[in-house]
């Protein structure tokens, strides 16, 4: 056993890289659910983001434009969901699942000519002297821009949801769309905006996979990350900073178990492999132990269709 060969600093740094895709997708879905819409198509939006981001980055030779394109791609796909569920009042669960299947298929089609191509390198943000600080430097200040953007999005979502009027309106729509409608708020329009934001975030998360974490395009490369993002929203009980914690916890355990294995640490691999899922389930159980509190946190109108009668 050679535990010493794991460098904890590198481990922490790669933890952030492994967590960022699900963090982005989760924070987007959190906003969507806060507005009272359940979009199960996260996986589909992520993979479409991954492929559009990759195509744009390769053709325009710019990872930044790749991420912009990924956000647009994800948002566009999510608006399809928005149109079906908000305007045509289709069932949200079924439409969300269909969106995942559709996304996986169309992404495979779009990406056919991009298999095995190298993406332009995403450069680390030059933070100058900050990066040279011992311990903190390698962990916090030697990353690509998207890691800081993702944390920035979490902070912004937290601020908007809890401190601003816009956030209050969004939450009102998610708690009781009828009351919000009676007050004169455009429920459908607000929800469509939330859905588009969720799609854009999921797209960014997907592009982070194809442009930074892997980095390449492969069909089906999200491999279930979207579903984990959905679980993390519940895990976080719809609170932005907890979503960050949940994503980092999940990503951290995934990376840690691979590193422990690589170091030849002798604990049964099966337990290591299932530990991220096990801990997610465990936390979900602990959190829902107090039923009334957990129920309080869920948006009251989550998943319910809204039709203005007047």
């Amino acid at each position: 056993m050679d535990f010493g060969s794991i460098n904890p600093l590198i481990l922490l740094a790669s933890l952030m890289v492994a967590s960022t895709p699900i963090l982005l997708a989760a924070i987007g879905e959190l906003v969507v659910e806060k507005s009272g819409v359940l979009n199960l198509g996260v996986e589909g939006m992520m993979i479409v983001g991954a492929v559009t981001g990759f195509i744009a980055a390769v053709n325009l030779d710019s990872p930044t434009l790749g991420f912009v394109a990924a956000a647009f791609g994800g948002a566009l796909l999510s608006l399809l969901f928005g149109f079906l569920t908000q305007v045509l009042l289709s069932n949200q669960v079924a439409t969300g699942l269909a969106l995942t299947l559709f996304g996986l298929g169309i992404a495979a089609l779009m990406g056919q000519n991009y298999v095995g191509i190298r993406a332009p390198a995403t450069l680390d943000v030059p933070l100058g002297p900050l990066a040279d600080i011992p311990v903190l430097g390698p962990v916090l200040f030697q990353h690509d821009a998207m890691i800081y953007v993702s944390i920035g999005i979490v902070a912004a979502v937290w601020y908007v949801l809890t401190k601003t009027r816009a956030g209050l309106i969004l939450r009102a729509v998610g708690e009781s769309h009828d009351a919000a409608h009676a007050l004169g708020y455009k429920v459908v329009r607000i929800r469509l905006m939330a859905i588009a934001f969720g799609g854009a975030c999921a797209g960014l998360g997907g592009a982070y996979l194809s442009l930074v974490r892997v980095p390449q395009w492969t069909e089906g490369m999200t491999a279930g990350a979207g579903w984990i993002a959905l679980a993390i929203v519940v895990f976080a009980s719809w609170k932005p900073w907890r979503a960050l914690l949940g994503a980092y916890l999940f990503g951290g355990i995934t990376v840690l178990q691979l590193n422990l294995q690589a170091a030849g640490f002798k604990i049964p691999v099966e337990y290591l492999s299932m530990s991220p899922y096990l801990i997610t389930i465990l936390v979900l159980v602990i959190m829902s132990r107090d039923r009334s509190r957990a129920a309080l946190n869920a948006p009251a109108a989550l998943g319910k269709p809204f039709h203005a009668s007047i």
Partner: protein
Amino acid sequence: MNLMKTLFGAITAAAIGGAAMAEDPVKVGFIYVGPIGDGGWTYEHNKGRLAVEEHFGDKVETVFQESVPEGADAERAMTQMALSGADLIFTTSFGYMDPTINVAANFPDVKFEHATGYKRADNVSTYSARFYEGRAIQGHIAGKMTESNKIGYIASFPIPEVIRGINSAYIHAKKVNPDVEFNIVWAYTWFDPAKEADAANALIEQGADVILQHTDSTAPLAAAQAKGGVIGFGQASDMAEYAPFPRVSSIIDDWAPYYIARVQAVMDGTWESTDTWDGIGPGMVAIGEITDAVPAEVAEEAMAMKAALADGSYHAFTGPINKQDGSVWLAEGETADDGTLAGMDFYVEGLTAEIPN
């Protein structure tokens, strides 16, 4: 009006039925574990399917389902395929073994072919390739090329096929480089690019400068490329888009001749339940071009080994080889029998890790 409709319907039905009778193509189904665009394992099986279509033209109709999880859902996919009229179904991953046997019992008239497994029935054949022959060549190159003497191995599931590959690669790396060490990571997936990339990164961060993989995507090669100075090998497919560096060679699975032969057997009515296990010699395993990143003499040695494996003058498991616990497995000059290889559940001496059970 109604009469017209009925009449028209009847004529159409008769026409379609007649056409089907005249053509009666053999319907061949394929169950894939990953997407056909994975660039590795499933990609090659799909190439085999396309070769069947090209070879037989109108006489054959193929269907496939990709990304089918190993387990209960696989039974559903196979049942659906059998119900929709498939005459022959290839199930192309080890984890489909029990589902294939179960579904085959319900459809005695449908022929099944299961890849890499060991359970057969009257209407279930098994087929696999001797990938471990290719692993021997990889091990040789890896042992010669490593400078840190640490070789990272991304394994999928602890099944005989994967363990054979680890043993074969290790024996041949050790032979040319006694200081070599293997770090093995079990990913518990055949296809998850993000996880495969993470595993490759974890291995590289801990000093490995050669990455061998038994997972299906090209992600470990992309990770090696991003880190720089690390070599890897194409798995199941050539993965030539990463040549000449980091991909220095590859193991390529060529299923097309086998698939064509088996479909032909169904057409001729000569299909029987068989067990096929072919290697480099018959061409089921091919070795991708060894690039210039490998010194010429190492490449020559590798090619010589390939020739010896192909003509049978050398067996990848030739004694003396001890098991991990130090007990003798093969005496001097003895070669492994297929039965032991097919069920291999032990590491050879020198590997320090333990096989998860």
